[in-house]
């Protein structure tokens, strides 16, 4: 069992780094598709964390903190809704479907890869 304060620090620092990295990707790819990129990469990384036998601190810092904050649901939901509201339900539907299909596939790939390597 990780000490509560240490666990909180691990999550917080991982979260700060994840938010920064997401911000950087958003500045590099200035479109809604940057969200697909972060959500897919972050889900792949979380899959690796789930598949590799790491300690609780690493899981908290990388899995809950970094991957959790690097990926985002709120921006995804607002983007989907505003795209549909702007009269483009086709793009909104494709965007919503692509996010979940790519994220789940990436997560399974990450955890599968981790199990093979370790």
């Amino acid at each position, binding site marked *: 069992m990780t000490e509560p304060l240490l666990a909180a620090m691990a*999550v917080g620092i*991982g979260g700060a780094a994840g*938010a920064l990295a997401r911000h950087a990707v958003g500045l590099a790819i200035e479109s809604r598709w940057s969200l697909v990129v972060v959500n897919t990469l972050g889900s792949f990384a979380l899959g690796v964390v789930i598949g590799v036998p790491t300690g609780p601190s690493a899981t908290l810092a990388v899995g809950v903190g970094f991957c959790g904050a*690097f990926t985002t*649901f709120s921006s995804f939901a607002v983007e989907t809704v505003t795209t549909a509201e702007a009269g483009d339900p086709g793009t909104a539907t494709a965007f919503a479907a692509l996010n979940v299909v790519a994220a789940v596939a990436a997560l399974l790939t990450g955890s599968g890869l981790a199990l093979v390597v370790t």
Partner: protein
Amino acid sequence: MERTLAGAALVAAGGFAGALTRYAVDIAAGDVTGLGTLLVNVVGSFALGLLVTRATEVRTQLFVGTGFVSSFTTYSTFAADAVALGTVAGTGYVVVSYAAGFLAAIAGLALGRRL
């Protein structure tokens, strides 16, 4: 502001607090797979809808939007929970999360435009 060091600091500080709050909600939600994640994603989608219609200052958008709310919600754990629940329950979890998240975003946007 978006590309400055101060902007990055606001995003990081918001991300620290957002991830920590999500962790606290997840602990409070207990051992039900996906419940904590569903809660943060729905609440966060409402909050971001409200924020994007109300926040005019870039500093607020970076700290609260890009930093706090976007880190409070998560997609990777959402995907992991959906996989952990198995094909049938996992698909249901995705449908419920999407429906509730979109409705929350619509409500937040509508409220923000009305205020």
